[in-house]
């Protein structure tokens, strides 16, 4: 809640941190321990630091102007309330297929299974993901330094 409704963007970023921790806890509840650790590493360690860097670089911290305004607040509220009600109603009333073997809690580590699946059945998405990460890193670096290369000569 605070992520969305807080006026100060720094408060939003820090409450986003707690949201990520909560989602990692939900992953543990859902028997996905490797995903929980990955969530902590990638989101808390990477994405949140990137967002905070963005906050610090794009706001003049000398003149305290880290407030973030809103726009279209009323129609957005109506539309989002309608959408949330619709999603909740659909999720609540649907009769989901539940597997029979989930009643007992099985506490197994999923790291081995994930590693096996990554190099056997999911090799192609794995390689595509590595290429996408490489392209993203190179592209981000290019975009971040092209401005200076243009202004220097």
């Amino acid at each position: 809640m605070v992520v969305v409704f807080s006026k100060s963007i720094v408060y939003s970023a820090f409450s986003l941190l707690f949201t990520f921790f909560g989602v990692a806890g939900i992953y543990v509840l859902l028997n996905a321990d490797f995903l929980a650790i990955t969530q902590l590493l990638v989101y808390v360690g990477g994405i949140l630091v990137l967002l905070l860097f963005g906050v610090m670089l794009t706001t003049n911290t000398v003149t305290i102007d880290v407030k973030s305004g809103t726009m279209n607040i009323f129609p957005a509220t109506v539309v989002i309330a309608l959408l949330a009600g619709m999603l909740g109603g659909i999720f609540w009333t649907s009769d989901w297929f539940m597997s029979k073997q989930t009643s007992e809690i099985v506490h197994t580590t999923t790291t081995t299974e994930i590693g096996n699946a990554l190099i056997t059945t999911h090799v192609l998405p794995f390689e595509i993901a590595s290429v996408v990460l490489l392209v993203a890193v190179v592209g981000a670096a290019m975009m971040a330094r092209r401005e200076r290369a243009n202004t220097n000569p």
Partner: protein
Amino acid sequence: MTITLTHFLMLSAVLFSLGLFAVITRKNAIMVLMGIELILNSANINFLAFSRYGGMNIEGQMAAIFVIILAAAEAAVALAIVLNIYKRFNTVNVDEISILKD
């Protein structure tokens, strides 16, 4: 009262709605990025809930891993774009960057 699939789906619906609300109402581009992260997190919760309760053993977790990878790449590229926008326009408010309209 036991926790069933429906509770996780309701949680992810709430998270998705809040993220979409942040995307379409906030002016700051970094707040829009935070909303996108919230939306991706809710999608991940859905993947894991269905893979836990639906009997598919590991496929949902694989999909969630790739979603996390793409979220990391998207955050890096989006931050680079936001920094370029800030250098050029000296603002990150998405409603003031409208020179494409003119």
